[in-house]
């Protein structure tokens, strides 16, 4: 028989406000196995924990029930307390009487009654608890970073600087991501390339970092510390280790009419290309959809001009298998499609552009060499209208945009407006806003400068429609403060399109078994306390794959993710979750049902000799669970017809006891 201590927490008034904690403690005293029961204001405080330790010694407790907040909050805390008192940490059970009782039931008698029942269920379970010891598994001291934008670059550099090898997988031919496409960065107006490209070079030269560009993750197996990843390296038809990046092929390629994705299709590139001058790795890539040689075997000019002999038309996709201890997701974002916003005439006029396109138009390496010219006729625009919140903050019923605020648009729009006025003072710049959101260091000052120093016309209101007429864009908008409808003849309209997670994130999340929210942003293990970890152990989050972020935030999160990875890789062994499945060999039929439902391949079979009830011996096939691989889902326990398979910590008996306690 267990000697159980019950500790009822007040959580200040959080629990005590709607649950009579003394009554709960009193009622649970009568439960079988309970030898001690008490209440206290804050069980998780040092004093509360000391009291638990003291009680364990004084009453020779073998099990503990804490009636408090959710086990997701403090289960680990109280397990440590138990361990410090010399108990097995798995002899602790939590009755969640805060989140699932006091916070949702407002009447004292109801809350108290339910709290007692939840307490009884926990006592019933502890009565059947057995001490558990976690197994250990080795850690592969190598990290994988998926995505080579500023988030992935920073994470990789930080991990590599700590001495651990890192691989970056980037689906584009070069790392750099969105930041490489930007012109200047707010609020300091540093040139994006000037601060990014040195980091790209650092990555390329770092002896601990390998870059798999033009590659994707195609399969992930394993678990924290021991991931088995398959990386698909797309054929780029150029030998990466031979190409010198001289660019002769790019110059000579006769197929020069391919929309240039780096400049968002605002100009063209050849079929063989290097995305931009500072690309890393600086190697050419052949676009198989455009190359005449690959499509119909006619041309081969690039191979002829390549003095290094790097061109290889027969190159195949390559699959690389590697083991990793940790995986960082840094898949980034994209602006949403403007197809559903007909009112802004994005698809009708070339002169209605998104903000990212505007970045390229003002970038010295962009299609206009940095001169702000209209895409339609190359003329200088004199009136520019910026529209904020295009597709952000939309109602979900509207099914057009996103419900969330994209966070970065207010600031980059202020930047665009300011830079335009600075370079071209003859330009009238209007910004239509719903709210200007500038929380951040030097952010509001930056926005105020745009208004006060640069005379940007900030108008509270929204653009209703844009109509191309002749070479003008008729903009109809409301000015809510002066209660007028405005009609502006604009030369250029810039839409601050909402941002969304990259499309590759969803299938990746499935491979990683990492959870996502409804917007396809990865969810954190805890929104406040564990913001860079995914709930899936060993998977970390960096940058906008977790939510909209600007560059400084992305970089700090990237560093935080790196430090978490370093913390993991610094360990030689990982303690596993002891709540894993185990098979009772005496009862096992060896039928393979469990093996078929196990998502981790943790179950194998062996032939063993058994003594049968009639004193003969027989060889039987029985299941064996690898505790390092088992993650403890319990699918096998239900598939097992004989009940030989059970889950430690959540045994059939324990759950039944909880059911019985609740239904009593």
């Amino acid at each position, binding site marked *: 028989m267990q000697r159980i201590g019950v500790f009822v927490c007040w959580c200040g008034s959080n629990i005590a406000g709607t649950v009579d904690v003394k009554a709960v403690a009193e009622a649970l005293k009568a439960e079988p196995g309970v030898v001690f029961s008490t209440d206290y204001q804050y069980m998780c405080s040092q004093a509360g924990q000391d009291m638990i330790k003291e009680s364990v010694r004084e009453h020779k407790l073998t099990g503990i029930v804490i009636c408090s907040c959710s086990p997701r909050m403090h289960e680990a805390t109280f397990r440590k307390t138990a361990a410090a008192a010399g108990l097995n940490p798995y002899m602790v059970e939590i009755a969640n009487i805060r989140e699932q009782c006091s916070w949702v039931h407002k009447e004292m008698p109801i809350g108290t009654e339910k709290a007692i029942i939840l307490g009884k269920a926990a006592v019933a379970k502890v009565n059947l608890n057995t001490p558990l010891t976690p197994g250990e598994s080795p850690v592969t001291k190598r990290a994988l970073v998926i995505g080579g934008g500023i988030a992935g670059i920073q994470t990789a550099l930080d991990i590599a600087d700590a001495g651990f090898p890192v691989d970056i997988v980037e689906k584009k031919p070069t790392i750099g991501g969105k930041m490489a496409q930007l012109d200047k960065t707010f609020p300091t107006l540093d040139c994006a390339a000037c601060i990014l490209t040195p980091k790209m070079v650092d990555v390329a030269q770092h002896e601990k970092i390998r870059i798999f560009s033009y590659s994707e993750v195609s399969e992930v197996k394993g678990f924290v510390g021991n991931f088995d990843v398959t990386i698909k390296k797309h054929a780029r038809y150029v030998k990466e280790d031979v190409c010198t990046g001289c660019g002769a092929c790019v110059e000579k390629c006769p197929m020069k009419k391919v929309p240039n994705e780096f400049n968002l299709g605002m100009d063209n590139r050849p079929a063989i290309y290097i995305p931009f001058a500072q690309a890393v790795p600086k190697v050419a890539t052949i676009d198989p959809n455009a190359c005449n040689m690959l499509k119909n075997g006619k041309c081969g000019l690039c191979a002829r001009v390549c003095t290094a002999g790097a061109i290889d038309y027969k190159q195949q996709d390559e699959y690389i298998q590697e083991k990793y201890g940790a995986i960082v997701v840094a898949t980034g974002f994209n602006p949403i499609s403007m197809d559903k916003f007909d009112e802004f005439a994005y698809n009708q006029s070339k002169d209605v552009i998104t903000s990212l396109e505007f970045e390229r138009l003002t970038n010295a390496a962009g299609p206009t060499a940095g001169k702000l010219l209209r895409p339609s006729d190359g003329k200088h625009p004199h009136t520019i209208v910026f529209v904020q919140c295009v597709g952000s903050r939309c109602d979900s019923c509207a099914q057009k945009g996103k419900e969330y605020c994209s966070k970065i648009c207010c600031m980059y729009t202020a930047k665009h407006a300011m830079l335009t006025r600075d370079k071209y003072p003859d330009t009238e710049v209007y910004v239509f806003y719903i709210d200007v959101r500038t929380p951040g260091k030097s952010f509001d000052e930056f926005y105020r400068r745009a208004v006060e120093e640069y005379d940007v016309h900030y108008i509270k209101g929204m653009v209703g429609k844009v109509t191309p007429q002749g070479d003008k864009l008729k903009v109809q908008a409301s000015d809510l403060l002066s209660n007028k409808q405005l009609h502006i003849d604009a030369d250029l309209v810039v839409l601050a399109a909402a941002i969304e997670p990259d499309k590759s994130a969803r299938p990746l999340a*499935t491979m990683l078994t990492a959870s996502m929210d409804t917007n396809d942003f990865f969810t954190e293990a805890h929104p406040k306390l564990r913001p860079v970890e995914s709930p899936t152990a060993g998977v970390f989050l960096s940058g906008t794959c977790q939510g909209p972020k600007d560059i400084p935030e992305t970089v700090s999160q990237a560093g935080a993710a790196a430090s978490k990875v370093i913390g993991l890789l610094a360990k030689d062994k990982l303690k596993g979750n002891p709540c894993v499945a185990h098979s009772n060999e005496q009862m096992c039929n060896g039928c393979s049902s469990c093996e078929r439902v196990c998502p981790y391949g943790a179950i194998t079979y062996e032939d063993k000799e058994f003594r049968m009830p009639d004193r003969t011996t027989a060889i039987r096939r029985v299941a064996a669970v690898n505790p390092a691989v088992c993650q403890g889902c319990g699918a096998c326990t239900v598939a097992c017809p004989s009940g030989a398979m059970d889950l430690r910590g959540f045994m059939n008996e324990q759950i*039944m006891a909880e059911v019985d306690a609740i239904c009593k």
Partner: protein
Amino acid sequence: MQVKEFKPLIVAFCCNWCSYAGADLAGNNRLNYPAEVKIIRVPCSCRVNPMFILRAFQRGADGVILCGCHPGDCHYTSGNYYTRRRMAMLFSMLDFLGIERERTRVEWVSAAEGAKFSAVMTDFAATVKALGENKRLEDLRCKK
């Protein structure tokens, strides 16, 4: 004479990763639902053996609801897909035996869906309450 109001007894099995967290979120946001709902935490909805459900009914539960991650979002990749098949078959069998099909339910509640958790539990409790006491499955020995 005053008739005592019928309060259904509802057992909710919630997976640790999504639905239990969803229930916690409902608590964080103070979204009320009937106190008759008692939650049992399981690592994954696929840990729920039909025997647990029958046991609950046997011991006098009036409704049993099972909550897990949305299909495709299972923390263990595929657990809830097995749950979906098993429970579809089990519920169909209970219905075949003439047990009210409204007494059993499976809902997918993510960690972000505190409001859904509260709404689902409120709705399920109301449905079960309307059905009245579970007479067809209870074990009469276990009633007080």
